[in-house]
């Protein structure tokens, strides 16, 4: 392994990658740059008031970005097959952490939801970290669905269900919904029978409806987005302030750093409602640019999915597309008042270590898939050596099924 791979941004190998991989890499950096600029702007006043240092959140975010970029670069240089090999254990470990947050007194309650764990001084949000693992493992399972025995299918479906349920019980309805949707879309991409998919979707909706009806505060919150003015200082407050921020942007925006709504009117302006600050400062034009960037990212991700050399790669690409783009769109929908107000961060934009690391890992995976997606230069000798290292599959109950799966063809399709 090359030590340079640990250093974000400076990766000399990039020039040899496929167009998609390079474009995605640069788009990720652009996205990340916008994110850092927005955290600087949105969090400055709050950080100054609460922490006595305007750059408090910005500095922390930079630290998270650097940590995340190390993971990002490592993933970009690690074969997907190897990563897939550890996905199940990763999923189970993070799932364990999620279940730990449910133990009263261990999870840190924030806004009525125990989403946080403290590992030493570091706050950790397992429900964020589990997303890339969920993508990987579900892609792995669904890609070879036909070949798996029912016992294996049921076991993993059960584990996925526990993941979603665990997140739901924190309670973190929005992340649970996102995970559910992502799993479903990966299954759809895998070409599972429509009847099974339809049944699952129905069951999921039913569970969601039940979960909401048991917690009246969730129902009220969910319904308040339809007309936030009914309770302008209660349930509707966040949304009203967010809409006012977005609308105050107008065509050109107020200019970078000049949002007024971020000055304590708009709550959690540097995390879940960071898009509202962006919209106020950069206006309609800025928003259109951001949407275009997301569209470009989505296009590239789907191209990667289409070009992918194996079903599992395609499903990873689809899953990460849903994870990054889907979550971004959901977040924009919340901030503009077309979706119920939920606590979903904007990937790579919102402040938050777990979300940042999770998103960068996801982006790194997508780029790795893009690199393996059919360009001759992807398969370098050093990488090749890695793939030949024995992936320890012993003692894993998917062992047999994995062995049965066809080897990923390493023969470049368009090699000239």
């Amino acid at each position: 392994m090359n030590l340079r791979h640990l250093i974000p941004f400076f990766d000399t190998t990039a020039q040899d990658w496929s167009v998609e991989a390079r474009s995605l890499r640069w788009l990720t950096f652009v996205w990340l740059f916008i994110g850092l600029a927005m955290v600087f702007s949105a969090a400055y006043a709050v950080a100054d008031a609460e922490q006595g240092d305007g750059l408090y959140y910005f500095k922390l975010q930079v630290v998270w970005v650097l940590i995340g970029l190390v993971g990002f670069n490592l993933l970009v240089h690690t074969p997907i097959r190897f990563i897939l090999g550890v996905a199940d254990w990763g999923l189970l470990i993070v799932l364990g952490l999620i279940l730990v947050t449910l133990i009263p007194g261990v999870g840190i309650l924030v806004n009525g939801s125990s989403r946080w764990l403290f590992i030493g001084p570091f706050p950790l949000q397992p429900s964020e970290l589990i997303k890339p693992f969920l993508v990987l493992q579900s892609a792995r399972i669904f890609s070879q669905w036909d070949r798996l025995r029912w016992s294996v299918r049921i076991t993993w479906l059960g584990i996925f269900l526990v993941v979603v349920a665990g997140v739901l019980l924190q309670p973190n309805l929005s992340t649970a919904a996102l995970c559910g949707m992502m799993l479903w879309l990966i299954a759809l991409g895998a070409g599972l029978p429509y009847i099974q998919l339809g049944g699952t979707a129905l069951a999921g909706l039913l569970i969601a409806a039940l979960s909401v009806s048991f917690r009246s505060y969730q129902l009220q919150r969910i319904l308040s987005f339809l007309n936030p003015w009914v309770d302008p200082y209660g349930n509707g407050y966040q949304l009203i302030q967010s809409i006012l921020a977005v609308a105050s942007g107008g065509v050109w925006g107020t200019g970078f750093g000049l949002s007024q709504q971020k000055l304590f009117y708009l709550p959690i302006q540097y995390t879940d409602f960071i898009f509202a600050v962006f919209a106020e400062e950069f206006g309609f034009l800025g928003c259109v640019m951001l949407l275009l960037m997301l569209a470009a990212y989505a296009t590239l991700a789907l191209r990667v999915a289409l070009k992918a050399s194996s079903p599992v790669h395609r499903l990873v690409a689809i899953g990460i597309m849903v994870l990054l783009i889907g979550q971004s769109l959901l977040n924009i929908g919340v901030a503009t008042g077309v979706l119920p107000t939920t606590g979903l961060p904007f990937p790579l934009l919102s402040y938050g270590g777990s979300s940042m690391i999770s998103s960068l890992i996801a982006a790194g995976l997508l780029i790795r898939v893009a690199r393996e997606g059919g360009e001759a230069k992807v398969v370098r000798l050093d990488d090749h050596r890695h793939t030949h290292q024995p992936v320890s599959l012993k003692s894993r109950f998917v062992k047999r099924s994995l062995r049965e799966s066809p080897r990923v063809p390493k023969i470049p399709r368009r090699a000239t």
Partner: protein
Amino acid sequence: MTLTQSPFTTVTQAENRTVGQRYRSVFLMAIASLIVLGGLGGRLVYLQLLDGAANRKLAENNRIRLIPKQPERGKVLDRKGRILAGSRLSHSVFLWPLARKKGEWGSTIKRLSQILKIPKDVVQLRLDQAGYNSPFLVRMARGISPAQVTALTEYSAELDGVQVDAEAVRYYPNGDLAAHILGYTGELSDEELKRRKDDGYRLGDVTGQMGIELAYENLLRGEWGGQQVEVDGAGQVVRILGQKSTKTGQDVTLTLDVDLQKAAEQALGDRKGAIVALDPRNGAVLAMVSRPAFDPNLFSTRITDAQWQRLQSADHPFVNRALQAFQPASTFKIVTTAAGLESGKFTPDTVLPTYPSITIGGIEFNDWNRAGFGPLDFPGAIAHSSDTFFYQVGMTIGDQTLIDWTRRFGFGRKTGIELSVEESPGLVPDDAWKRKELKEGWFLGDTVNMSIGQGFLLTSPLQVAVMFAVPANGGFLVKPHLLKDNEESKNWRESLNMLPTTTQKLQKGLREVVTYGTGGGVYDPSLPAIAGKSGTSEDVGGGSDTWFGAYAPSDTPEIVVVSFAEKSGGGGGSVGAPIVRQVLKAYFDLKKKTPSSPKSTASPVP
């Protein structure tokens, strides 16, 4: 472009490798993403381009606040410009809800309730009512003591969000003097606030609750001003956008004379009752006393339980007895005389025999001395207050005429004085009322009773004073009033269209009450000639109510005084007349001290 093109191009390429259906899902996802992106773009067009201006304005409102500034309440002055109700600066304690989060108030509330001696839940309730996001200050206490100010400063570290500010509180320099007329001020109650929110009142606003303070609230309250400021979300002022100066409330000058009011209060002493002094020429109220009284200053700050208990132990101290209805007794003979002479059934010189008693419908009606006075004319009957004389008058003219004239003298309805909220209209009974309330018809006995002011008839001391003003001013019904401002521009009286002889006979009779009749107690050699009439109600337990009404000087009357003592025992002549004499003496002594009235000095001397 690539988004829509790529699926097609690659699907054909890869068809032989994998099932086409799998690529369909990618295509579906691309379409779905496109739709969602388009939808969000449309939403942004709506919010930022179409609806932008309106929402921008709302966001603007978010930042612009009016920091309200309380206007100084108008003063209440007596007729010579002396202050009856003013303001003094005192310290008030406010909470600023926005300063802290909802859960953080606990220790502050505890400390605050300890220093201010207000129960914790009262503070909590106030805060709940105002709302935890309210940018407006919530008043917790007014007129706190210097010691409390010191304590609050001392603990200021624990009292985040608490502000101590100088604020004007209502001040009545004369204590309980004229308390019932002035009334008092207090903070709006919740129900009142709901009712009057449209008039621009806010939680914690101080308004008039009784008397003149209530009646002239509109003039006295003034207009709130303030600074228009731009604030950030924490409520910190970013810059000042504009100023709106407060408008001090209008001063109100009353017809009362503080000196006469003091004398009247002294004359009534600790008796339960009322005194009304008014100018018979225009109905201007010169003094109005009601006992027991209260100190309106108590309400300017937060009233303590002990103070409240002490107030409640007195017999209805807040009731203005000058405006409550009682039996008028013999003072009412003025109305019976007027009705008799105006009915045409008697001439001004009619003489009737009087008896120890008269039996009507099997019931014996006594004269008050149970002996009779021999034959009397109208003035003589008034002078002796002969009951049997007026029984005969009442029976002759009949109930309709008597009731009609009672109403024409202003009984049975509010006089029109500004204190109408506290005023009772009294009661003039008639056949319809009796049938409705007592399920029986009008008997001759009712007419007989009414002719001497007994029975169901109820009149307020103020109404009785208005009645005395009729003979005093030559036959006019005046509208009593307390506001001196613009007094000259209005017409305060209305002729009753009585014959001149009727007025003359009344005047003669009332004068003779003092010279040789029942009202000798009012006589004072140092005073101008006085005319008056006593009244003593039936004793229904607890002692009789006693009345005395008088005016002076009897030839050119300028003051009417009516005293009423509730359950005092004794007679109007013995209890009431000396009270009236004291008031009249004070009036004429004061007049001597200031010989030239403001009007005469105003006329230019050539």
